[in-house]
């Protein structure tokens, strides 16, 4: 049938042969493809499945709610308040400029914020919200909420922000929070990833900083499915995380407020300790500042004003400030002498108005001298010569050891910023630090709390508390964390003979209650609240022999920063001590005239847990005390005591 030419037939055969060959090659290659598919999809399936999950699932952190801080009665000191902000999503907005213009007409927005938002929006993915305005008032946020239909892409959002309702009262102790800085991160080893959340806040100073770990809590997480450009498609699951622990302080809001306001105008610090358990009831440093400024981001002008103030508002003088304790240190020297057996309660020394040793004459503050004095009289009159004599006999080593036993020159472990160690100097210390031999003059100076001795107001208050109880009262500022009570600060016995303690206490009683005591003017006349105190006036300058010859310049004639520091420590009531108080007024001139009245007011306030009755004061003081009470009452925080929380 077929008439195909031979030529065509052979070519047809050749085509067939080569077609089969090529077909085989093709099928072989398909086999390779199938093999590759098998390798990827079966042999390596688990690995690739994992990679696909990694691609798809992104873990987002949920920042934990920061623990709140309450005072000893459950009144909030640092809390989380709703903060309103306005965010914008570029892809929903359409014309970003038009929407932002409309928004700016509706509520006041800083033009720089708008510019910042615009640049941020250009950079980030179109579906990511960008914050346009922060800390928007409730009125403004309501306006925006009502107008959302005409503001596409704009969302009013609510978040939590730290607030310190008592403003400046707790600025130093509680501190403040702020956004995490690179510097903060550089200090932390292996930082918690939650710190990388934009705008996440951590404690910067004070308790907020020292108790950061407890307050922060741990971040929750939500696993979300994201697409290739990072848009969240849906949430897969969520773990809520743990909110930070609430912290209850030993501080009392009312007393703290009173102390802070009582110190106002001075550059001063005061510490009130509950002698029964070491609770710090108030810990104030004046002047203070508003920590809320720092949370919001302080303006440079405000910050410069704080920095330039010569009263140093940012420093916490109560625990960081170190002062020569002056005559308040005589308590330590007296105890050291009594304990060493150098003197007993009836040993007398003679004060001619000066003390001579190594061809140098050390003067008593009273030029004419005190005559014969025992230890009670020495304290009552704050006779320098008595303590020069006693100190040089006891020796610096025993004075220093007693100082540390009483809490001076040791670092008290408190969750506050830069708690100062102070200094109870020894011969060894001077050799190590100044490479000089200890001189007898150094001991003489230390005997009246001058020279190398340094103490913080906190340490002075601890000293008073330990003296009044005879126990190692350990100060504490945190009462409970997350509802769990912290150990009490009432320690073991100091191991000091009761007779020694009694003699010193009696001396302090005479200081305040003997007509000829140095602080008689600042006494308490109510029998059940009488205080026992010790004045201190510490020099911040050397008085030269020439000046002494010409007559010592009066403090009021000196520039402020050359005047003496005024100090006062006390405990009360004398018969049954409840509180110990230390007050330091920087360059306040005189312990008895400036520090003692402040300390008395604070002591009474602490004992009465409010304004004391006027008849606790000497009759001549009552008028101005009444005026002052009225003035400070006006500054008292208005707290709804029923609404208070409990840590």
């Amino acid at each position, binding site marked *: 049938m077929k008439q195909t030419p031979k030529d065509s037939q052979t070519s*047809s055969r050749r085509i067939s042969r080569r077609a089969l060959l090529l077909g085989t090659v093709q099928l072989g290659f398909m086999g390779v493809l199938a093999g590759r598919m098998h390798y990827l999809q079966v042999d390596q399936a688990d690995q690739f499945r994992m990679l696909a999950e990694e691609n798809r699932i992104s873990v987002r952190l949920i920042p934990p709610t920061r623990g709140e801080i309450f005072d000893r009665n459950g009144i909030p000191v640092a809390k989380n308040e709703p903060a309103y902000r306005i965010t914008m999503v570029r892809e929903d907005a359409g014309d970003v400029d038009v929407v932002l213009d409309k928004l700016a007409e509706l509520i006041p927005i800083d033009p720089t914020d708008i510019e910042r938002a615009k640049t941020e929006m250009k950079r980030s993915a179109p579906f990511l919200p960008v914050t346009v305005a922060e800390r928007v008032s409730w009125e403004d946020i309501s306006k925006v909420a009502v107008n959302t239909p005409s503001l596409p892409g704009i969302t009013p959002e609510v978040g939590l922000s730290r607030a310190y309702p008592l403003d400046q009262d707790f600025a130093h102790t509680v501190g403040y929070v702020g956004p995490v800085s690179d510097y903060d991160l550089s200090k932390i080893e292996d930082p918690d990833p939650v710190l990388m959340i934009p705008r996440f806040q951590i404690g910067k100073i004070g308790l907020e900083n020292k108790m950061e770990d407890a307050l922060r809590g741990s971040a929750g997480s939500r696993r979300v499915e994201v*697409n290739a450009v990072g848009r969240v498609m849906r949430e897969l699951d969520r773990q809520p995380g743990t909110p930070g622990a609430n912290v209850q302080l030993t501080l009392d809001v009312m007393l703290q407020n009173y102390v802070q306001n009582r110190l106002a105008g001075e550059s001063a610090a005061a510490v009130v300790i509950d002698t029964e358990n070491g609770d710090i009831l108030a810990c104030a440093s004046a002047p203070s500042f508003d920590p809320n400024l720092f949370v919001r981001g302080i303006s440079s002008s405000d910050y410069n004003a704080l920095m330039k103030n010569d009263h140093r508002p940012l420093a916490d003088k109560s625990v960081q400030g170190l002062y020569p304790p002056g005559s308040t240190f005589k308590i330590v020297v007296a105890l050291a002498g009594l304990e060493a057996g150098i003197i007993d309660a009836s040993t007398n020394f003679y004060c001619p108005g000066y003390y001579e040793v190594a061809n140098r004459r050390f003067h008593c503050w009273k030029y004419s001298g005190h005559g014969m004095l025992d230890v009670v009289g020495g304290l009552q009159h704050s006779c320098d010569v008595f303590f020069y004599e006693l100190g040089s006999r006891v020796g610096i080593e025993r004075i220093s050891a007693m100082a540390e036993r009483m809490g001076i020159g040791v670092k008290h472990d408190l969750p506050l910023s830069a708690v100062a160690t102070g200094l109870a100097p020894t011969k060894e210390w001077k050799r190590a630090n100044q490479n000089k031999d200890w001189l007898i003059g150094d001991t003489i100076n230390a005997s009246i709390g001058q020279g190398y001795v340094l103490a913080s107001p906190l340490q002075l208050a601890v000293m008073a508390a330990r003296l009044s109880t005879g126990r190692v009262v350990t100060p504490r500022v945190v009462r409970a964390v997350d509802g769990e009570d912290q150990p009490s600060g009432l320690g073991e016995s100091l191991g000091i003979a009761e007779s020694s303690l009694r003699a010193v206490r009696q001396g302090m009683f005479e200081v305040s209650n003997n007509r000829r005591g140095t602080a008689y003017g600042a006494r308490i006349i109510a029998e059940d609240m009488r205080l026992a105190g010790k004045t201190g006036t510490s020099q911040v300058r050397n008085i030269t022999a020439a000046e002494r010859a010409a007559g010592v310049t009066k403090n009021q004639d000196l520039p402020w920063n050359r005047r003496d520091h005024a100090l006062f420590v006390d405990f009360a009531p004398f018969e049954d001590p409840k509180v110990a108080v230390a007050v330091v007024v920087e360059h306040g001139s005189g312990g008895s005239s400036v520090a003692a009245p402040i300390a008395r007011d604070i002591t009474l306030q602490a004992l009465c847990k409010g304004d004391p009755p006027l008849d606790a004061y000497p009759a001549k003081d009552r008028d101005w005390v009444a005026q002052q009470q009225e003035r400070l009452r006006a500054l008292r925080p208005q707290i709804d005591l029923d609404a208070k929380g409990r840590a």
Partner: protein
Amino acid sequence: MSYLEYRVKTTPTGFRKILYLNWPLALLLTAVASVGFLQLYSVAGGNIGRWAEPQMERFGLGLAVMFIVGMVPVWFWRNISGLAYAISLVLLIAVEMFGTIGMGAQRWIDIGFMQLQPSELMKISLVMFLAAYYDWLPQRKVSHPFWVLIPVLIILVPTFLVIKQPDLGTAILLLTGGGAVMFLAGVHWAYFATVIGAAVGLVWTVFESRGTSWQLLHDYQFRRIDTFLDPSKDPLGAGYHITQSKIALGSGGWTGRGYMQGTQSRLNFLPEKHTDFIFTSLAEEFGFIGGISLLTLYALIILFCIHSAMSNQNRYAALLTLGVAVTFFLFFAVNMSMVMGLAPVVGVPLPLVSYGGSAMLVLMLAFGLVQSAHVHRPR
């Protein structure tokens, strides 16, 4: 040879031709296209109007084209082969001069009602022309150097035009497809051995040229080769496509993640998921079983073509059928190698499955020629 060679009387005429069409082949093509519709619906996230529906319309048009072309006697196609080649060449040159820019490459020409890709047209007209050439050339001259040089030029001229566009994928297809037709026509082994040897040399030279003043490839082409050789080098840049594609494939496992459940394609980790990388999406959602099934369909199409060609006494018809089959094979082989990380990403679509009008219509036209050869085979 002329049409007189055909036993016209034994060839079906009129509508009876319909009975003699290669129906299993048509069925297989429809099956493959349907896989495409299914997957286009899936990658559009359940939106039929986005890609699946236009693709169905085009396939409908393609089927019509295939049947019409199939009804036209194969000798007509043989006679216009030269013309088809000439027109394609002119269009390629036209694209070089007036073509619009699409996807970074100069490939399209606007002919009013649709965007035409002359390089697609060239794939088929080259095969037609070469088949006609060897049909005309006496068998004894096939391996004569002069008669070998002519088809080599026929292949190289459009190949260079396409490379200039630049479209490396199509160039490879033209070169390999044309070479395969020459091989089938019976050109001596030695020529192929020489060319393959020379190609190895050329590849070496190309790599040597890198960074010099006479650099033979674009930088992006070099980068593609680099990332092909080591995708991990640049996982977020150029290697991203290959890496993500392999992750998608691999995560499919035996049975896949389920229809419309592929996270890689769903969440846009896959590039070009509706065109070049659609196989990845299919393999992610239907797994190894799904991938092998599609590969089997393709293999069956090739086998039906080879069977049809081998049972065809006509030289032109047989060469044309095999040429189309090889071109079709090259399409999916290059595409699959590419998405599986066996070849560089060169931009070759998965035939009949990837979204795209030009390629689909040209392929159906080619299968129309296969049908024509099948219907009009000498009996």
